[in-house]
């Protein structure tokens, strides 16, 4: 090599310094807090949830802080909570699902109609409804992964299609709670209530809690969970690193369809009846997205935790019940939730800004 090419010798002799040292260089309290949020993003919604509970507890006293009121919140959020878990999975892959609420309603209608129209036993009708949820999820997933359509468009269309099918198939007929109770009580199984020292739980609430815990485990501690994050973070990189992107996306959308089916079953337990015009079909998607966003899951994918989404759903429930108990105009609930959504996304942007 010619003399002129030796311009790098200076660095070569000192190349051992400061290349790949990973130690903490005294970032201070603020920096550490930032880092904590970065690694455990569910902390923010948890703090908000706890402070909301404390504030309402101070204002309303034991009226709010009773086992009954606190478990009432759980009962009120059970449908949104289950849908939020489904939505969280999709958003982790950098997608969005506008059809979750509609799919839940259609699944509940299918469970009801299959029992009452065709005389299929309810224990079989429930799996049939769940299977329909999986099938719709598979169509969504295939369109997103293979045809490469944006998830927003796919599920916007699917939302309308599913709602229409729901009305056409059910002929807009509601199946009354008394009939279900008399002829197919298994459909209402998740509405079964039990008491634990004044606290009232339903099996639907238990299902929501178990679902959240199982998903949290799967996302954290299995290869599939890591792949979901990797695909949401950077699909090209994940693919090159050896992750089967198509399989991961398909499995997420199908699982989400299944969870929406479960939400449909929870709905029958909660309302007693099967109604194709349940509001969940129209606003369930927005409610789920709200919970996910307040829960600190990044809409850009790959960041956040399912626990955060659950806390997000609870925050909405606490605000709704607390403000109602305090006698405030319900519009205050929407106003505060609007503020929370914007605040949550602001915090997300800040967390994503990493100063190495």
């Amino acid at each position, binding site marked *: 090599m010619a003399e002129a090419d030796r311009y790098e010798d200076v660095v070569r002799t000192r190349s051992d310094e400061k290349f790949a040292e990973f130690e903490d260089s005294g970032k201070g309290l603020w920096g550490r807090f930032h880092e904590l949020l970065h690694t455990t993003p569910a902390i923010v919604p948890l703090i908000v949830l706890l402070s909301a509970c404390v504030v309402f507890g101070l204002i309303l006293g034991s009226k709010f802080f009773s086992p009954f009121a606190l478990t009432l919140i759980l009962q009120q959020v059970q449908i949104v909570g289950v849908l939020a878990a489904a939505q969280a999975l999709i958003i982790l892959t950098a997608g969005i699902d506008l059809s979750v609420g509609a799919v839940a309603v259609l699944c509940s209608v299918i469970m009801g109609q299959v029992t009452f129209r065709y005389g299929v036993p309810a224990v079989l009708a429930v799996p049939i409804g769940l299977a329909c949820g999986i099938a719709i999820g598979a169509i969504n997933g295939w369109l997103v992964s293979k045809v490469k359509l944006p998830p927003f468009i796919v599920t916007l269309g699917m939302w309308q299609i599913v709602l229409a099918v729901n009305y056409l198939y059910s002929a807009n007929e509601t199946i009354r709670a008394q009939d279900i109770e008399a002829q197919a009580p298994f459909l209402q199984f998740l509405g079964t209530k039990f008491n634990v020292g004044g606290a009232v739980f339903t099996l639907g609430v238990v299902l929501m809690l178990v679902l959240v815990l199982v998903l949290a485990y*799967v996302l954290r501690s299995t*290869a599939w969970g890591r792949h979901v994050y990797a695909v949401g973070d950077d699909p090209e990189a994940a693919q090159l690193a050896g992750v089967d992107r198509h399989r991961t996306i398909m499995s997420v959308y199908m699982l989400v369809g299944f969870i929406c089916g479960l939400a449909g079953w929870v709905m029958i337990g909660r309302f007693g009846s099967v109604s194709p015009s349940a509001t969940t079909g129209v606003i369930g998607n927005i409610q789920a997205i709200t919970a996910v966003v307040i829960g600190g899951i990044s809409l850009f994918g790959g960041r956040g935790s399912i626990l955060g989404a659950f806390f997000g759903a609870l925050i909405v429930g606490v605000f709704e019940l607390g403000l109602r108990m305090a006698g405030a105009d319900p519009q205050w609930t929407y106003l505060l939730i609007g503020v929370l959504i914007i605040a949550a996304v602001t915090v997300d942007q800040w967390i994503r800004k990493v100063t190495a």
Partner: protein
Amino acid sequence: MSKDTHESPVLEARGLVKRYGKVTALDHCDFDLRPGEILAVIGDNGAGKSTLIKALSGAIQPNAGEIFLEGQPVSFGSPNDARGEGIETVYQTLAMSPALSIADNMFMGRELRMPGIMGQFFRKLDRKRMEEFSRQKLSELGLMTIQNINQPVETLSGGQRQGVAVARAAAFGSRVVILDEPTAALGVKESRRVLDLIQEVRARGIPIILISHNMPHVFEVADRVHIHRLGKRLCVIDPKEHTMSDAVAYMTGAAVPEGVEEPA
């Protein structure tokens, strides 16, 4: 070069052809990688060197031609096939998930599960084993004092990320490691460290294919230089017997190496 030039190649390609519509990116291209060497692949933009590398790493499938790995014919349907045969590639984009940890990234797509029922039935990852392995591989390459193997990759500097990517390739690439422009995005000092790293990987007996535009880097570390031109191998030169100007002249067509007939 003291090496026996008749040693059979680790990775060999004969007559590779790849067409994209009317464009012929690879035109009956040959390729040889010998055991334990660093082979640099250079060529002008559009000469087809990245197509060649993609064919060797399974990212594309050639229309014609054959690839041999240690003398056996192979065909890679995907990067995973090549990876299964011990060929690891460090892509220019690094192929890492920024929000996931160093250990997660090292094992992406080939995670280790816990032994027994926790792994088989509950599919639980064996984090401890993966973290230990990652830490060990990084230290083997002299890459650290890593305090926190669980820190997200996005908190690392460019050079550190490159280091982790090279460590991942070296850890699993039992037969060949392919490096695509490993120093292109790095500062002078970090490039220096990555070049040292490349030599450390070679010292462990793994042959390396190095694609680079940086002539000083190529001439410093390569044992042989494969010059790619117009979709095929123009010649292979010994960097000790040729200058950088020669290499640039050959790859741009300004000069023709001895014994090669340049088509008009």
